[in-house]
């Protein structure tokens, strides 16, 4: 049965391989271009930004090119992830729903092998094909992500597309397409449904459950009011904040202001009252009146934070947790995929067409 499944999916697999190779070639080309631009910018005469005035035009153009390439990172990675998901969904859909759609399941189920054997053999080929197709693309995506990123690789609120997690995601997609395919027997609709479900599920997981998989760390920034260069406004600064959080390559996944006296439920009102009072004092704004500029609003926030003794708590996941999250997400996806596979096996065993 495995040979039959392989032969049946051969056209799909060849098309998928072409798509994978095209995506890899594209990623490699852009990645190398980016590497070259970064290297040129880091070395003489630009020296990573400390360039002489005579080379300003050249270096600024180089810098602009760097930014342009990096700005395309999101859509490009999304496109690569879409290639992975579509290939996985098509393989799963054609493996099972394709048999139902074309009626060939009535041939397969009347040969001298059990339906469980048919399901097992078919799914082994489909899942193995998905893994083989997706692995080189996942490696390429991981390399590409490392090349084009500013600093760290870990954005907790974005889809993880580097590391090995795309392989379990793809296998989950294939398992989903196979199992749902015994009910929804139109491959086109099935592929669309799987793409929506996997993307939606991943979005929910990323927003709601990722901090359960890897508990976030906290960073506390004390509000400190200092005058800025113009002398008329004040900023909250914390010398350690950027070096601890941003420069370590992670982005905060949440922040909140907490008063030092711990009155969490009333501090918002107190800040509001403080700001209104200060606005009236500093800018002659009527009580409950509007601000004249965003700068005025920032000033009021900072002054009141300082007066009330507020400090800020940032949640973040450090770079060191990258592989931990990868492993846990990957294990979760594989477990879900295995559960779906068992559901399909059970259904095929108990029911008839």
């Amino acid at each position, binding site marked *: 049965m495995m040979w*039959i499944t392989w032969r*049946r999916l051969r056209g799909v697999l060849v098309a998928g391989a072409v798509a994978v190779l095209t995506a890899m070639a594209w990623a490699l080309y852009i990645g190398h271009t980016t590497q070259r631009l970064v290297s040129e910018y880091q070395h003489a005469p630009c020296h990573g930004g400390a360039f002489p005035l005579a080379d300003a035009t050249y270096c600024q153009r180089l810098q602009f090119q760097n930014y342009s390439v990096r700005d395309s990172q999101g859509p490009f990675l999304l496109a690569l992830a879409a290639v992975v998901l579509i290939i996985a969904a098509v393989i799963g859909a054609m493996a099972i729903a394709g048999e139902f759609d074309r009626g060939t399941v009535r041939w397969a189920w*009347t*040969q*001298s092998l059990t339906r469980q054997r048919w399901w097992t053999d078919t799914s082994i080929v489909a899942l193995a094909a998905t893994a083989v197709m997706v692995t080189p693309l996942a490696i390429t995506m991981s390399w590409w992500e490392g090349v084009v990123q500013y600093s760290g690789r870990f954005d907790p609120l974005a889809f993880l597309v580097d590391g090995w997690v795309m392989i379990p995601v793809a296998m989950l997609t294939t398992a989903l397409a196979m199992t749902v395919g015994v009910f929804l027997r139109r491959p086109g609709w099935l592929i669309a449904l799987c793409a929506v479900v996997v993307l939606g599920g991943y979005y929910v997981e990323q927003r709601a459950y990722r901090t359960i998989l890897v508990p976030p760390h906290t960073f506390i920034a004390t509000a400190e009011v200092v005058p800025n260069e113009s002398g008329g406004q004040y900023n909250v600064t914390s010398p350690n904040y950027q070096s601890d959080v941003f420069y370590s390559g992670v982005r905060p996944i949440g922040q909140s202001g907490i008063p030092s006296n711990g009155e969490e439920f009333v501090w918002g009102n107190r800040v509001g009252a403080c700001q209104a009072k200060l606005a009236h004092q500093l800018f002659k704004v009527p009580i409950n009146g509007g601000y004249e500029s965003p700068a005025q609003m920032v000033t009021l926030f900072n002054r009141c934070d300082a007066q009330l003794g507020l400090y800020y708590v940032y949640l973040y996941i450090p770079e060191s947790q990258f592989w931990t999250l990868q492993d846990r997400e990957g294990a979760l996806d594989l477990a879900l995929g295995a559960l779906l596979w068992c559901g399909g096996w059970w259904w095929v065993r108990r*029911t008839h*067409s």
Partner: protein
Amino acid sequence: MTNVAIRLTKVTKSYRRRDALRDCDLAIPRGRVAAVVGSNGAGKSTMLRIMAGLTSPSSGEVTVLGEAGAALSAERLARVGYLDQDRPLYRNFEVGEMLRAAAHTNRYWREALPREQLSALGIGLDQRIKDLSGGQQAQVALSICLACEPELLILDEPASALDPAARHDLLQLLMQQVSGGDVTVVLSTHALDDVVAICDYLIVMAHGRVVLADDLEFILQSHRLVRAGIDERPWPEGAVIIQDQRGARDGVVLLRLELPVTPGECDFEKPTLDEVVLAYMRRGQVEVPS
């Protein structure tokens, strides 16, 4: 070993809002070539799929080749050949690849048989299935079924949508392989000429019920038509009216007699198979409201 190849006992198959089969009782003896006839939607394909183990009945009992139960084991599947009415073959495969696929999945596969048959029919092993005509696809599908050396062959409208020549070739291939053997064949068809030519057992279905199932020769012998003087002639004792279409001046009545037929009863006209089948199908429609 029982002499019955297939036995259905009170088999009902229900889908959401309708019954495809209702209380079907049937016992097809081994070694017979049985035809299942009936109008579209009568339940023929559903019944054949239940026999092949593709579909399970909602209620009732199915016994195939002496084993009870709807789900066929791999061992029993190896002894049953099934050809669906859509002739599901992998369209992108070459004929040789299709044979290889069948060889992979059938433990009693006879390698040489389908190659000889297809070669004799002029079908090359390197031809793609999708490039074959409907008749050739049917030949390939039937050759695959026959190469598994089944004890039971279930064919769902194997010759439908084929031109007369292709149909003749297909039925000839079938008869060559099953004649003289112990193979039981159950085939559904709309062509009563085929039934007369190759079958010796007849099953008539109407609205999900088996309304007639018996030896073909017995059926023809045990039915008589009365066309003239219907009300004047005495009817044989035990005769059952199957169809009664009496008009003001003339009419026709189909009777089922108890065999053996006495000499006096032989005066009645012998019906054709078409007349018997049509009468039973109409009778089934009258008895079973839609």
